[in-house]
Each structure stands twice: as structure tokens, then as C-alpha cells.
């Protein structure tokens, strides 16, 4: 059945994926003899994995309180219907097979038999129905949009869930994995009360995953223990997962070095320390694990201001920023210049043929002169302010870099640093800025993470991480409409390529860098899942 699905909609890609599979296999065969022999090849049972978390999560259920801290805990507690492999193909999880009928408007999932919640209740299709209709479509910050076309989930029998769509929605195949559309227990969440955020199970979760909740010592640590009734007979190998809340990056570095923690997610150490850890044979610095999130750093203009409505001004600013130098000065050389709104490593969506704005301060000055902004007293053409996001040292340093780069072409940039809530209010509610820099996750599909920057309907005051620049363009809206509603994968792909070309050509916002996202772990830890958003079911610790 799984095969049938993949053939029916992924027919065009299947062959290419197989070819790619062969190359990877071939590569592995070639490389294997030079790899150091592993100390032990078969998984070891038992052991506790201690890891760090930068902040204490608010809740442990990613389907309800979505955050990066929660996303490091939740995948171990909950499963999704499917697992998305690195190449975009799907692997069964709670669903063992699925079938697409009715020209993409009906998808039938067969659920795995014998799966039980951590409290012993069996998993049924009613849980799937409630998780999608009653939770994800209601409170999930992305689910409300990605699952918009799901009109009903039918439950003909306890192990069959039928998703019905108003129009075909290819995007759901990149959103049905566990960390994005989590299957939650109906018998715990369907209480008749509206406030899902207040449910006590958000902090004492009941899931189906390989680990179950044990204890949470507020401010100190959180313990998950092996789920002995996990549906996968061989997993998990570890006895427990312990998350220590360590706020200071230097303290995390020290804890890794002393072996107090063996795994550290979400850019745990300062970028300057990365090279030292890469050179250390005891550790791995893994940049691949967050490619699902695909973070892109950008520079927004407030297009409500007449100054920035002139394409020449925006282009001049884009030409004044040397992205390679920006990466070296603020991101320890670990970021890659972006050529568009989708990172180049996301090959299935990426468009390499778009307009580029390579560093050229001379041309920038000519454009500014032409736009009627000559250098005035003190060599200043005009003064604007800049609102950097306050999430880290590299962001602040980048803002200072912009200040210097723009000074060179005669633009005075006043950097305004605030704490997070003030920043959010200014950037996304009051639109109180001239220019703004931030990074968004693009996610597996541009419909989930990219179009929000360019869609007129994403201009929603009071909503963080939406369209802050105020860019509203009929041509762009038409392309985005095709991305959302086109059922045919090939035509939809064309729309995705076109969206990138338009974003580069119209330049409502400068795409700066593909940011480095990484995790650091001890080499005693084996068989980690390829994505940081998957569970440690198969992972084990060498003793």
C-alpha cells in the first residue's frame, strides 16, 4: 500500500530518488574501508543519555506549545502518522500504509495494531481525528494553515482514519511527521473545555513514543524513561533520557568537555568554539540534523515607508552587504551566502536561476545618486533605523556589520537593540522600524515556512514571524495561490521556482545567509536519527 502511494503521486521523482539512492550507496561502499572501525557494531541496551537544553520548555507537547526547547523533548514522547526521510520519501510510523484516492482529495491511513498510550489506553483512529480536527487545526501555529484544506477525518473503524480535503494539498506530506502533526490522546485532551493550553497533560504528557514521562524538577532537569510497551519490539535501547537546563553557553561547553552531558541540541555552543569541537575526536558537530528546519537569515525593509518603495534604494542596500564577510565576521564563517528565500541544500525546492545582488558598493552609490539621495553634510545620504532580532550574539554582531557596510555608501544606520517582547511588539504589531533583520525556518515545504514572508495575507498585526515588511504584490500573491491550491506536483514545483525568482527580482527583503544550525554530541552516542526532530528510539550509548 505504501508503494502504491509513492507511485501514484511521486512517480516522477521515484526514479530519480532510486538513482540518488544508488549513488549514496555507492559512495558509502567507497568510503567505508577508510572509516575507523566502530568499537561495537551492535546496539548496547541500557544507559542514561544526559543532554542539555538552553531553556526550560514551557510544555512538553510540541503539538500544543511549539518551541525549540519542546521540539527537543517531544519527539521521544510522541509519534506521528509517518516519518519523513531525508530524501523526502515517507516511512511508516503510527500509520502502516496509506492510499490516495479521489484525485488527491481523500487519503486513507491504516493504523498500526496494538499501539498503546503510556497510560495503557489503546490508540485508535478517534485519536487521529481529534489530533487533526480538534488540536492541530485549532491551536498549532503552522497546522492552522497547512491543514486548512482538511474538511473532515472519518473513522470507519478503530484502525482506519480517512482524511478528506476540500482541494488536494500536497503540502501535508511534508507536515504529517510526528514533530509537526503530533498524534495526541483524545481521552486526555477532549475534556469539553476549550483551553487546550491549560491541560495538565502538557506538563505530564501521555504519548505513544519510545520514552515516557518520569519526572520534571523545575529549573533543574527533566527525566524520560524507557517505554517498555513501545510498538517497535527492539526499541528503545536507552533506559532514560535526562534533559539538564543549562542556560549559559560557556557552561554547556564545559559540561560537554567533562562528559556531564553527551548530547547538546540547538546551537549549544558559541560559534567560535565550533572549530575546536570539530577538531576533537571525541565529539561530532552535526550540521545536517536541522536541515528540515532550513533557517534563512534576511534583511527586511518596512515597505510602508516611501523611501523603501523605490527598488533602487533596496537594491543599493543589497549591493552594499558583502555576505561572505558578514558570515566571517558575525557567524564565524559557518554561514553560507543565500541566493534566494530557500536554502540551496533544499534541492527539491531550490531555484538556482534567480537575480543576484553581488557585493558592489560603487554601483550601490550610483543607484542611490540616481534615486535622488546624494551625499549630504558629513557624507550622509539619509539616516534610517534597524531592528535586529535579539536571539543571539551573532544577530547583534550582524547588525553592527550592516551599520558599517551601509556607512561606506553614505547611509547612517541606527541599530536599536531591545529585549525579546519589546522587539516582537515593534517588529510584528506596531511595525515600528525602517529595516529589520531576522531568520525564519523554511521547513520542508515553502508553503509552511517561506511564503509567509511574501504573501499579502500574512500581513497580520500581532502575529510573530509573519510578513513584517508589508509586501503585498498581486503577481506574488497569484504564484503563492498556485503553490497552495495546485494538486499536481509538477505544476506546483514550477510555482515554487517562480516564487523564488519573483522574490529575488522584486526584492522586498534581502536574503542574506543560510544559517548554520547544529548539534554537538559525544562519539559514544551511536545511531542517532538523521533529523534532530526524530526520536532516540534507535540510538544507544557505548559503555
Amino acid at each position, binding site marked *: 500500500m505504501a508503494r502504491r502511494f509513492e507511485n501514484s503521486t511521486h512517480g516522477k521523482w521515484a526514479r530519480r530518488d532510486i538513482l540518488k539512492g544508488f549513488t549514496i550507496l555507492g559512495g558509502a561502499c567507497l568510503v567505508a574501508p577508510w572509516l575507523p572501525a566502530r568499537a561495537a557494531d551492535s546496539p548496547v541496551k541500557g544507559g542514561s543519555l544526559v543532554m542539555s537544553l538552553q531553556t526550560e520548555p514551557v510544555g512538553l507537547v510540541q503539538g500544543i506549545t*511549539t518551541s525549540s526547547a519542546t521540539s527537543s523533548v517531544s519527539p521521544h514522547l510522541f509519534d506521528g502518522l509517518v516519518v519523513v526521510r531525508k530524501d523526502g520519501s515517507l516511512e511508516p510510523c503510527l500509520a502502516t500504509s496509506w492510499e490516495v484516492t479521489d484525485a488527491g482529495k481523500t487519503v486513507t491511513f491504516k493504523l498500526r495494531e496494538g499501539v498503546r498510550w503510556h497510560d495503557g489506553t489503546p490508540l485508535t483512529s478517534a485519536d487521529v481525528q481529534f489530533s487533526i480536527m480538534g488540536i492541530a487545526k485549532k491551536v498549532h501555529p503552522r497546522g492552522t494553515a497547512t491543514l486548512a484544506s482538511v474538511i473532515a477525518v472519518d473513522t470507519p473503524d478503530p484502525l482506519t482514519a480517512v482524511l478528506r480535503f476540500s482541494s488536494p494539498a500536497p503540502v501535508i506530506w511534508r507536515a504529517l511527521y510526528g514533530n509537526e502533526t503530533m498524534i495526541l490522546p483524545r481521552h486526555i485532551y477532549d475534556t469539553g473545555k476549550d483551553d487546550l493550553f491549560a491541560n495538565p497533560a502538557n506538563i505530564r504528557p501521555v504519548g505513544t513514543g519510545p520514552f515516557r514521562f518520569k519526572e520534571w524538577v523545575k529549573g533543574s532537569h527533566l527525566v524520560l524513561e524507557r517505554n517498555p510497551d513501545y510498538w517497535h519490539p527492539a526499541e528503545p535501547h536507552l533506559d532514560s533520557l535526562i534533559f539538564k537546563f543549562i542556560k549559559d553557553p560557556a557552561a554547556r561547553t564545559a559540561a560537554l568537555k567533562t562528559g556531564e552531558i553527551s548530547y547538546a541540541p540547538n546551537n549549544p555552543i558559541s560559534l567560535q568554539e565550533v572549530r575546536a569541537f570539530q577538531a576533537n575526536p571525541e565529539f561530532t558537530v552535526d550540521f545536517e540534523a536541522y536541515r528540515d528546519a532550513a533557517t534563512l537569515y534576511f534583511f527586511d525593509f518596512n515597505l510602508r515607508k516611501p523611501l523603501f518603495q523605490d527598488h533602487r534604494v533596496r537594491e543599493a542596500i543589497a549591493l552594499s552587504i558583502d555576505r561572505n564577510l558578514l558570515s566571517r565576521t558575525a557567524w564565524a564563517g559557518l554561514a553560507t551566502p543565500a541566493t534566494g528565500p530557500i536554502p540551496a541544500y533544499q534541492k527539491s525546492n531550490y531555484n538556482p536561476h534567480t537575480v543576484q545582488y553581488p557585493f558592489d558598493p560603487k554601483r550601490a552609490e550610483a543607484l542611490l545618486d540616481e534615486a535622488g539621495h546624494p551625499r549630504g553634510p558629513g557624507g550622509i545620504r539619509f539616516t534610517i533605523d534597524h531592528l535586529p532580532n535579539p536571539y543571539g550574539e551573532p544577530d547583534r554582531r550582524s547588525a553592527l556589520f550592516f551599520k558599517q557596510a551601509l556607512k561606506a555608501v553614505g547611509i547612517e544606520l541606527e541599530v536599536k537593540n531591545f529585549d525579546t*517582547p*519589546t522587539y516582537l511588539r515593534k517588529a510584528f504589531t506596531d511595525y515600528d522600524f525602517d529595516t529589520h533583520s531576522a531568520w525564519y525556518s523554511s521547513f520542508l515545504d515553502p508553503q509552511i515556512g517561506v511564503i509567509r514572508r511574501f504573501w499579502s495575507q500574512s500581513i497580520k498585526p500581532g502575529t510573530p514571524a509573519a510578513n513584517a515588511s508589508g509586501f503585498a504584490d498581486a503577481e506574488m500573491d497569484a504564484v503563492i495561490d498556485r503553490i497552495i491550491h495546485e494538486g499536481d506536483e509538477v505544476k506546483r514545483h514550477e510555482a515554487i521556482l517562480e516564487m523564488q525568482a519573483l522574490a529575488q527580482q522584486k526584492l522586498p527583503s534581502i536574503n542574506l545567509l543560510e544559517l548554520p544550525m547544529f548539534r554537538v554530541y559525544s562519539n559514544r552516542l551511536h545511531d542517532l536519527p538523521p533529523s534532530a526532530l526524530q526520536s532516540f528510539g534507535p540510538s544507544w550509548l557505548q559503555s
Partner: protein
Amino acid sequence: MFDQSSRRRKSLKAVNSLSRSAVTILCVVVVNFVLMQMLPGDAAEVLAAESGSGSASTVIQLRQHFGLDRSVLEQFFAYLSNLAQLSLGVSPRFNLPVTELILSRLGNTLLLLLSAMGIALSSGVIAGVVMAANVGRWPDRLLSLLALLLYSVPAFWLGLMAIVFFAVKLEWLPTGGIVTVSQNNQGWDAALDICWHLVLPCLTLASFYVAIFARLTRSAMLEISQQDFVRTARAKGAGPLRVLLVHMLRNALVPVSTVAGMHFGALMGGALVIEVVFSWPGMGQLAMDSVMARDYSVVLGILLLASVLVIIANGLVDALHAWLDPRIAQD
């Protein structure tokens, strides 16, 4: 007759100071509430932003959950009526009663504060006495230099260097946290484990105050050594050690304990930095996180508790003064 009026005066004084404390606490509540309201941004936006994406409907639901759809006055009276029922309310962010959130950290913070204060006071006073007894000679010079060093080095830097040296290089002590999470210690082992974790944060926090108390004790001792009663004590034949410890030190402790009481509040502020550097699960970190998340019920609860703690600390200092110098009690 005399006894009764004195008792009445005493109870009047107690009522007076209690009502003064109550007014202080009410002022703390009002000022903090107004300050929190003046900060831009709100808890719903912060929580929505943590997801990295937002949908307008999610933000609206979050705002309802946080009670932010009510007017500021309504929110304030709801808080006051909670407080009147001796409840600090519920943190909508963590979905836990504020009292539970704070009490789970209060012990850790008090452990850190009191042990740091104890170490700072005892070693500061000893150093001060040694300096005063050897004024101008090498022990005085050396300790003065050391005190100057501790006084001027920022605590977070000292903490980080202590981690690098004692935890990473020598591997004597843990880098942070309060317990070894991978061991499930019980009883004495657990207590010992906490002590090991306490050493570095406690010493780092104490360092600055050791310097303050040492310098203060030294100058107080030197000032007192010029006074008539010290000469009298020496003249009547008291040994130098007795003069130093009984006659001089007891009097020098009055200004030292006054300053210690005043610094108790500052010490709580200093503990915040130490808590972050050493991942110590205390109230300071919770306060900081709650301000950044605009979770005002928690912030107000902590500030309230902190002001109560400061009031208690000052009360204790008053009692200590009365014991050190009976003349103070008679006023």
C-alpha cells in the same frame, strides 16, 4: 506598673513595624504591577514567537488563556483579590500555581544565599581582624591586595574561570546544576552531592562580599582601637587577644552587620548571575525568565517574596544589634 507600660510600648512597636511592613509590601505590589504593565510586549506574543511561526488565531487563543483580553484594572483587581486570599495566582505560561513554582526554587536560592552570606561574613570578618591586628605589615598588605582583587573582578567571570579550572581542567567539582542527574542519590549521598555542587557557586557569589566585609571590619576595628574604652581595657590588664576579640570586635560587628543586612537584597540580585552561570535552579533565574516572558504573576510573586525576605533579614539584623549592643534595645 513600669513593667506593664514597657510591655505595652513593646507591643505597640511590634504592631507599628508590622503595619509598616504591610504598607511596604502593598507598595511593592502596586509599583511592580504598574512597571510590568509599562513594559512593551505581552506573554501571548512571546509564547507564540517561541514556536518560530505564528497564526493570528493561535495568538488570540493564547491571549485569552493568559487573561490578557481583560482590561488592566480587571487584571489588577483579580490579582489583588487572589493575594487577599493568600494565593499568588497561577502562571498561565507554565500552568502551575505561582506558589508551587516559587517554592520549588526558594530552598535552592536560600541555600545559596545563606551559605554565601555565611562564608562571606565569617571569612571577611576574620580577614578584617587579621588585617587590623597587623596593620601596615605584610599580612595586611597581602590581604588588602586580595580583597581589592575580589572586589574588582566581575562575579560571572570569576565563576566561568572557576568552572574552567576546577571542573574542566582538574575535574574536582561539577560544572553546574544542583545534583548529579544521572545518579539517583538518596539520603546522605544526596546531601553530599548537593554540597559538591554548592562549592563553586557559593564561593563565587561570596567573593565580592568577602572583600566588602574584610575592608569594613578592618576600618571599623582601626577606628575603635583609638577609642577610650579600648585604652581602659588595656590599662586594666586585659590580654591583647581579649581586647581584640571581646572589646573591639564586638563593637566592630555593629556596622558590619548593618551593611550585611543592607546587602542582603543586593546579594539576591548577584545570585541571579551566579544561578545562570552555574545552572543553579534558583529564584533569580525564574525571575529573569519570567520578565523576559512577561509572565507577570510569577514576577510579582518573586518580588513579593524577595521583599518579605529583605524585611525578615532586616528584622534579624535589628535583633542582632540589640544583642551586640544592649543600648540599642533600650531606645
